[in-house]
């Protein structure tokens, strides 16, 4: 399958530059590491990253599997999309859930977002990387997402135990990435480092990359909790006294565990409308992520613990 339809217009120059740069990074990992894996979170960034991987190795298939860390609380529409995508691109999909967390009944509602994220995402990721002995893991993070990400390397070095030390990262000059590691050390690789949220959407539109329908506005039943609009995706999330579901025209800018992903009111039902909305919007993408606002510099703390 050719990922781009022949009738598509040529990419604008800055997207072409970003595309080539990312393809170069992805190929570098395939050439230098023994056992790489691509983290696939089902979101728009993961969609672009996978699409780039398919392009990088054409006519071969990407020489690594996808890994989804499933907390058990993703939107059902995300899981459906995930399985369709793996089939469409013909890539191997690994799914991992932290069995200890599952046994302890950790969940985003009563355990709190911090503990849930720590156990079901960060710990789960480390367990999965150890279990399959992956020496390099692609992530879809971008430098424009958050302040502590702005200094992240493209090849981010992790000491054994997946420890990220911001003061002990390798300088990256030119495109001469240092891919050397010792036993037990790993690298996280961010091929989308230099993309912005807008670039992601423009590229998704230009390349017709499928995205989870939750990104588009539709009438959905939501509750208002702590000032955020939350969509109850199943019965596990009980209503608090006084809460009631009401149908509103909403969409999601960022997708994660459903109790932690706030919707925004929107009328954007197409990619064109999403892009137009972004240009007038006045809040940042991660503001809908309840896990980031726990405390100041919370992303930096999570990263030190081994989060992406």
């Amino acid at each position: 399958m050719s990922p781009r339809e022949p009738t598509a217009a040529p990419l604008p120059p800055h997207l072409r530059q970003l595309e080539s740069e990312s393809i170069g990074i992805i190929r570098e990992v395939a050439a230098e590491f023994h056992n790489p894996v691509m983290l696939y979170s089902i979101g728009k960034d993961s969609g672009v990253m996978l699409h780039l991987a398919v392009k990088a190795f054409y006519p071969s298939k990407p020489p690594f599997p996808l890994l989804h860390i499933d907390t058990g609380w993703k939107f059902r529409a995300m899981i459906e999309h995930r399985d369709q995508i793996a089939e469409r691109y013909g890539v191997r999909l690994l799914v991992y859930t932290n069995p200890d967390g599952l046994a302890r009944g950790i969940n985003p509602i009563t355990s709190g977002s911090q503990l849930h994220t720590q156990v079901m995402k960060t710990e789960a990721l480390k367990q999965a990387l150890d279990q399959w002995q992956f020496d390099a893991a692609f992530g879809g993070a971008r430098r424009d997402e958050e302040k502590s990400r702005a200094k992240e390397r493209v090849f981010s070095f992790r000491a054994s135990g997946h420890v990220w030390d911001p003061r002990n990262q390798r300088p990256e000059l030119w495109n001469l990435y240092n891919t050397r590691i010792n036993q037990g050390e790993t690298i996280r690789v961010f091929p989308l480092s230099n993309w912005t949220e807008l670039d992601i959407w423009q590229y998704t539109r230009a390349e017709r990359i499928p995205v989870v329908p939750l990104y588009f506005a539709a009438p959905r039943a939501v509750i208002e909790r702590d000032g955020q609009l939350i969509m109850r995706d199943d019965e596990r999330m009980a209503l608090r006294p006084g809460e009631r579901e009401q149908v509103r025209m909403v969409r999601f800018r960022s997708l994660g565990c459903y109790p932690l992903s706030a919707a925004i009111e929107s009328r954007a039902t197409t990619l064109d409308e999403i892009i137009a909305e972004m240009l007038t919007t006045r809040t940042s993408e991660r503001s809908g992520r309840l896990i980031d606002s726990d405390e100041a510099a919370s992303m930096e703390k999570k990263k030190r613990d081994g989060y992406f």
Partner: protein
Amino acid sequence: MTATSDTPAGAAERKGLLRFLTCGSVDDGKSTLIGRLLYDTQLVLEDQLVALERDSRRHGTTGEDLDLALLVDGLQAEREQGITIDVAYRFFATRRRAFIVADTPGHEQYTRNMATGASNSQTAVILIDARKGVLTQTRRHSYICALLGIKHVVLAVNKIDLVDFSGERFHHIVAEYLGFAAPLKFSSITSIPLSARFGDNVVRRSERMGWYEGPTLIEHLEALDVSEGLDEKPLRFPVQWVNRPNLDFRGFAGTVASGVVRPGDRVVVAASGRESTVQRIVTADGDLTEARAGDAVTLTLTDEVDVARGDVLAHADARPEVVDQFAAEVLWMIEEPMLPGRSYLMRIGARYVPARVTSLKHKTDVNTLEHIAAKTLGLNEIGFCNLATASPVALDSYAENRATGAFVLIDRFTNATAGAGMISFGLRRATNIHRQALLIDKTARTRRNGHRAAILWFTGLSGSGKSTIANIVERELHEHGAHTYMLDGDNVRHGLNRDLGFTDADRVENIRRVGEVAKLFVDAGAIVLCSFISPFRAERRMVRELVEADEFIEIFVDTPIEECKRRDPKGLYARALEGKIKNFTGIDSPYEPPAEAEIVLAPSPLGPEEEARRVLEALKARKIIG
């Protein structure tokens, strides 16, 4: 749906990216300037603004005003310390262009971060505090920009509000800067008076400087032409990955570093000189009729020539140099000093190759640009060096081609990125070296000798018993009829190496020479016993790599330092402890114990005869002797 052409996004669709770095000294206002660019191009969003107001109250330095610098100072550690400790990348777009800013720190010890930012930038904005004028740091930053190949610089004279928007002050600073920068040969220097804090001449034209008629900073950056003419340069295609989905397809994936390639072009593999013709330019979007600098593609060739990752494809009539020695400017980036003679891993293009600095010609004082004689390079120092690689590499000078003229050096034990290099010129064409073919080789000598050749490398602290044990081993080998020779620290230093002292650099050179001599003896079929403290792993490994894998036997005489001090056969420890000998291993100079010694000798209660016997046993087990 409304068209997006009047929006920042529409703009980004029209022009490629511009990557620039900002540099200046500590309080020149870099972070404030970038904050201002983001704020005035409306990329600061409501929730970020709320966070900014909160942070301004907590950490801010601007009183009641928003502290825009806090928008960009990312990591908790540096917010608390009020300095920027690393390179941060920022993104914004205007109607005409999309930008990536490398925010690089002005702090003295972070030269390497500035070089990192400059390596991927097309232009640099050098900030000057209008009250302070051209400072030492300004000179240093300009020099590093020039060294890293930045052609266009913007001199941003900031805080102009604090000198009453004085044109006279501005022109004075510009004149001083132009005088200093002339030898750096920038293609363009554009000077702009501005106030990052209040936004004058950043995005909005200032109404308070009627005397200034030039562009605002953003107008200048939007219009700047930074095309490096990469398409007109000779074709360089570093092969990154060989794509073999099946037996019928063999493609070479990579990104065109310079030039243009088309199907039908005659190309050569630079290092081997083998020729072929480009058949197809394959991409997932269909075959292309040409690929230009920056395009990530996959090439197929008409012939089955041997091409691997790290090879460089070039047009047959415009090849890169293929050399194993070259001269380069090297910027050192780790605490442990660069030592001539030590083996590092060099990454150039898609290739890793062992390399040594064979000589350090001089280092450059980044403040005065003076050349200074030196034996080593420390963190953040820049030196002009000759380097030798273990095998020939294809390269261009950095001035001609940033992609094929740049390299990094990697520490072989820690894997730290230790140095960054910019190639000045090749020194020796590798193709001219033809080793004399010999009629009698090592195999023939081994057959006659009845034993195999090897280096027995005794390492350990002074007084550990290395030489004593080595002497007994040699005596035993000699009695068995083996050809042996002893190289000992003391006797070599009286002759071959009498020009060397005991600094780290000299210790490395000492071992390198001993290694080369030992290698000749191995080639002659002998068992060479080498007894050297040889405190550094890197040098022992260097010698190990000079000979075949089974010819180097590392023997670690693992006598504890307390025991060595107690023995102190030459009275050296006593003198070192009194401070009469400097750089004494184990006292004020480190010893790095071997991680993978073939033989480890803990002190035996039966004495050195017993230890020597264990060495001989091991040599039998390894079939060095019968």
